[in-house]
């Protein structure tokens, strides 16, 4: 059975690429990372989760 050379070559490139990206530590996210908006938290704490606003009283002040 002859293996598809084009696909094998593609696969080798993919594996090498994945290895380089992993070893060099690249990430999808940019360096400027934030999982919230801190300024709005500080400026208006408790209102940045509108879903729960008013139902749970422990979002800070």
């Amino acid at each position: 059975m002859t293996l598809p050379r084009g696909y094998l070559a593609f696969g080798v490139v993919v594996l090498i690429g994945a290895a380089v990206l992993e070893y060099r530590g690249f990430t999808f996210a940019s360096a400027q990372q934030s999982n919230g908006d801190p300024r709005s938290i500080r400026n208006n704490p408790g209102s940045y989760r509108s879903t729960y606003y008013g139902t749970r009283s422990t979002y800070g002040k």
Partner: protein
Amino acid sequence: MTSVQARGLNCPNCGAAIQLRSFQFAASVVCDSCLATLDASDANVAVLQTFEKTMARARPLIPLGSRGTWKGDPWDVIGFQVRQITVDGINYRWQEYLLFNPFRGFRYLSEYDGHWNDIIAVRGIPEGGSVSGHPTATWRDTTFKLFQTSSATTVFALGEFPWMLNVGDVVTVKDHVAPPFLLSAEETDEEVTWSLGEYVSGERIRAAFKVTEPFPSARGTFANQPNPLAGTPARYWQAFVMLAVALLVLVGLRLGTAGGRLASAVDGVFHPGVATDKAPFVTDPFTLAGPTSNVVITSSATVDGSWLFVGMTLVNDSTGQVIDVGREVSYYHGVDEGESWSEGSRSDDVRLGAVPAGRWFMRIELDGPDAGRDIDWRIEVRRDQPGLIWWFAAFVLLIVPPVIVSLRSAAFETTRWAESDFAPASSDDSDDSSSSDSDD
């Protein structure tokens, strides 16, 4: 090349000259001029059937009398007939060419919608059976799946035939397929005749019989047309397994060699309501060793129904490179209408990509609620933590080609069987326009 001497006679119906090329084998002959069917075995050449126009005169793609070398032997085209089946009121017609070689006997070429088959008679009776409930016929270790059962009518004929041909003859045809082969049973009240067809290219036939006019292009998918991707999915999946194993090896190597070393850790207590706790401060310098790699910063805090914002600026002591990160650690839980819930976590990870080696320090700024309990917090910086995202992306890329090839191969088979008696329910009445003939 074998020389075939023709026997001549005159049509008793119209007087036209007729040549017989198959010697004593000719049982009937159709006059090329008046289309009357004659008894070739009768010395007086009796008229068996006069032509009744049921369709326009068909023109053979391979002229009668043509001679060509096919599979190493010379063959003469001596007969031509058009046969028809009717499905849902639509006539489907195909052409059959009778070839003769005085030493090899007879064989047939059939053409339907540009698809050609080379057909020989089978000397024996294939064994019937079924596979997963699908009727089959087995001949010489090859199992053929029943494709279609139909009543075929001869609607036009020219030339000579080794049987008493009559236009209007009806036989029941059962086609079984094992591409590129087609095993057919033609049943009459008296007998069952089996034949084996092999899908061949029209261009090959055209070249063999030196036909100058081009043949019609193949349309649609024929019953025994070889799947152009036959066997390809298996090869792709085999290659995929090899690449997947290589991927696993690479992941194992990465997990086994990744550093994940703790480069820095700082902790403290955040007192809500104390303004000085919100003032930024700077950590001691620390070293990120090795080649350019990732950095994972873990922020943890003993928040409970509360939150702590951690603003971090990673500064390279030598180059001045700055990486800003803002994270929130928050954890809430409770019970609503008897159902417990929770949201957030007391720990947060952020992965920074491609951070160069060198001496770094962090500027940290905390923010939190103005009231509540004290919050213990800790920030850890780790170097070269292994991740799975790129390996997962590679896995997805690797699996796409075999999946596509498999789907395309399956689509071809779906198209093939859509025209059979075993078509999926959703494919009925498809492709009618491409394969039907009108009664012109």
